């Protein structure tokens, strides 16, 4: 018995090491085999349509002549965060906003070239005093249930939006909405303002007057709109199905029979579903996987210019950050190029202005601040904290990008004697902290949902709105005045002057430190054609068609 045991122990060691080694090395081989080496080989090609898709060009890729659009088919879309509600006045998250935009159409809609174009309306006229806007409606407009769409429906919808808690702020300039006749909507404003952006806002999507006789709850269980699609079924949190609206006003569109949104929050799972052919389209692949996806011959990756900017919100409740020299020191110590390279894997652009290039009146003369450690040290020496200080950086726990950015900035600031402690929170807690101003440095973002700076600027600079400035305890009377003025004029030249002054001042005073702009990235099977995504992010699914 003793003999046998001794042999067994040695055999165990040998076999154990072999088995253990295989266990460790094996998966590595498997992982390497499953994705082609991205560097070198097909890297530059970026699957053809990748190049044409960027720079906000309408989705039909110039490099891929796939012929005339074919009608039919179902688009399976695995989305990272699906809709939470389909009531256009109650939406706040992108998933809901963009889904709602396919169901409910509006008087005007934002386009891919940075403006708004007539949708339900055919155009508009403005009275001499700049207060009365008249919108004639298209002929033959119908809702998805076949009933006629008239001015009374538009009035009901806009009034409802004005009264909503979440989105009413956008309609604050509206004094009255009248249905002059069945086909004419007249909106009177309290002061001259750019109403086109306002009526393009998703919250002003048009529903039937009085919900077509149903109760509000009944209506939103089976919503009726005039957008390209209707909602045919919805298992909340799981799957939402859209069907073609046969009464949609744009001739021939949508091409798709249906769209199925599947909620898949796990990044890896989304990619696997696309690679496995279970879905045709996914959003937001992790930056580290973009290149690997581009290298796959059956897939296409498209990047669309967005209105997204990421920045640091510095709380001036925390004494050191109330000192502009300290903020300048931080601003000059950050290596933005490294951030784009390391956190975004190159899929972004360093930011100068807090506006992104796609926002109206973007000031491109405001260059991104380049890292200069010597200069940063000078700023700090002149400040109230010449010996550095400790500061806390609040981010979403487990978020790879935020963690990388925070670590990078932590290393940057260490060079000038500022010690950063990174604190992880779950998103809900973080939002709460932000609302109450209970943070020191906060990783923040802004995006526009309409081509009108008014949606974001008061929210950013006016503490009364309870937004960015309120959380940062930053009250700049001059900025607030400019922002208010800009919202009360229809003169484009005047708007430009004001919004550029606002950008410049934010750039100088640096209450917020813009880091980078990122595109919206979608990966899809090669069968998906013509995915158009304007900078506001609301996909034009009515343009999409599928090849066999």
């Amino acid at each position: 018995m003793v003999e046998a045991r001794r042999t067994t122990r040695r055999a165990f060691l040998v076999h154990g090491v072999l088995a253990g080694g295989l266990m460790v090395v094996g998966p590595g081989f498997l992982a390497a085999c499953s994705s082609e080496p991205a560097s070198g080989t097909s890297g530059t090609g970026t699957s053809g349509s990748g190049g044409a898709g960027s720079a906000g060009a309408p989705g039909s890729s110039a490099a891929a002549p796939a012929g005339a659009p074919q009608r039919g088919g179902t688009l399976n879309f695995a989305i990272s965060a699906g809709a939470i509600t389909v009531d256009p006045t109650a939406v706040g998250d992108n998933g809901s906003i963009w889904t709602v935009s396919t169901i409910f159409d509006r008087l005007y809609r934002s386009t891919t070239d940075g403006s708004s174009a007539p949708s339900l309306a055919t155009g508009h006229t403005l009275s001499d005093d700049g207060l009365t806007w008249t919108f004639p409606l298209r002929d033959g407009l119908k809702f998805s249930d076949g009933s006629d769409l008239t001015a009374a429906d538009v009035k009901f919808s806009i009034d409802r939006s004005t009264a909503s808690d979440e989105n009413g702020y956008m309609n604050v300039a509206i004094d009255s909405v009248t249905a002059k006749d069945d086909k004419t909507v007249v909106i009177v404003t309290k002061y001259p303002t750019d109403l086109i952006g306002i009526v393009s806002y998703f919250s002003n999507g048009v529903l039937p007057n009085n919900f077509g006789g149903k109760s509000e709850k009944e209506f939103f269980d089976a919503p009726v709109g005039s957008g390209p699609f209707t909602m045919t079924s919805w298992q909340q949190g799981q799957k939402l199905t859209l069907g073609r609206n046969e009464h949609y006003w744009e001739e021939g569109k949508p091409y798709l029979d249906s769209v199925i949104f599947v909620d898949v929050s796990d990044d890896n799972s989304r990619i696997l579903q696309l690679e496995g052919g279970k879905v045709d389209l996914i959003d937001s692949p992790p930056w580290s996987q973009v290149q690997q996806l581009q290298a796959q011959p059956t897939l296409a990756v498209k990047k669309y210019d967005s209105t997204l900017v990421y920045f640091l919100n510095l709380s001036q409740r925390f004494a050191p950050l109330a000192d502009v020299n300290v903020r300048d020191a931080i601003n000059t110590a950050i290596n933005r190029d490294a951030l784009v390279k390391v956190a975004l894997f190159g899929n972004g652009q360093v930011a100068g202005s807090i506006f992104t290039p796609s926002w109206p009146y973007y000031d491109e003369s405001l260059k991104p601040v380049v890292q200069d450690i010597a200069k940063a040290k000078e700023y700090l020496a002149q400040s109230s904290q010449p010996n550095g200080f400790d500061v806390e950086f609040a981010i979403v726990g487990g978020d790879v990008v935020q963690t990388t950015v925070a670590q990078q900035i932590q290393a940057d600031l260490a060079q000038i004697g500022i010690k950063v402690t990174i604190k992880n929170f779950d998103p809900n807690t973080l939002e709460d902290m932000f609302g109450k101003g209970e943070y020191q440095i906060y990783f923040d973002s802004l995006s526009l949902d309409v081509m009108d700076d008014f949606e974001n600027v008061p929210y950013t600079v006016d503490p009364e709105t309870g937004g960015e400035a309120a959380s940062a305890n930053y009250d700049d009377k001059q900025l607030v005045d400019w922002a208010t003025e800009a919202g009360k004029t229809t003169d484009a030249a005047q708007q430009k002057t004001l919004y550029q002054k606002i950008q410049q001042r934010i750039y100088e005073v640096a209450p917020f430190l813009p880091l980078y702009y990122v595109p919206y990235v979608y990966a899809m099977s090669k069968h998906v054609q013509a995915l158009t995504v304007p900078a506001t992010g609301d996909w034009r699914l009515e343009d999409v068609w599928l090849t066999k």
Partner: protein
Amino acid sequence: MTSSVVAAGRAGRREVLVRGVRGRLFAALGRIVQALPIVIGVTILTFLLVHLIPGDPARALLGPRATPAAIQALRAQWGIDEPLPLQYWDYLLGLLHGNMGTSLFYDRPILPIIGSFLAPTLWLIVGAGVVSVVISVPLAMAAAMWRGKVVDQVIRLVSQVGLGAPQPWVGLLLILVLSLKVSLFPVAGFGDGLSGHVWSMLLPSLTVALGMAPILIRSLRAQLIETLQSDFITTARSKGIGGGRVLVIHALRNASISALTILGLNLAWLVSQTVVVEAVFALPGLGNLLVNSILRRDFPVVQGLALVFALTVIVINVATDIARSVLDPRVSV
């Protein structure tokens, strides 16, 4: 494992009362009733935990542009601005009337919501249990029969690795190899129809089972070894009954008791695994619902799920005990 010794002592006294189907049923009901204070304790604990962590569902639902007035109005509408004891009392009263409340986010009653997310999780738990037994029993048998030899060592080593491997990683690896490299299984989702569900749930069940199996193998192996060396096996052998039959008929039956016990004891672990595995395989199950509801601070859903899980674990534990008592007359419910 140790409970059979304790139970044998108890059985002497209670054996007369607990034999037979009716006896067992009454005993089971008694156990469940005894467990009700535990269930209430669970609901109190969950209630406190989820309400006391920072975060506001009203703010989350209304979005970043909502005014403080709007947030306050919604909180009042939902009744979540009242003192905590009062809120809990209302909740308890509702429960007694069979009303589990309404989801803050979905604006629908809780039970139907839980119902719509239930199926994948049930499949996963049952599937994981079945697959782990299917994996563990032959391996444990092999390890026990060739105890000390290479087979035994490898099985034990590999199962150690399985214990340490994180489920999400295992799941992704399985998908990569078995769904992408060779399209043997669907990449994700729950599938349609019975065969669709079976095919879709095999990999997720395997993922969880690979974490469960090491524990089962280790204890089954120990049980089998002990049983193989016990007196009644020696007696059977001396009567001329062959090794394989001996193992299967006698030893396995004994060992199956502990397998069941271990599965039942680890039900809570199984349930917790559904959370990570459902995310990887995009299964619309209770684990997903729980995580999202916690992130959104959807209090009624979190409380509802905690209640459902607590009740399930208790019922399953009682059912396990009944099954054990059927298999082993020494054990009483």
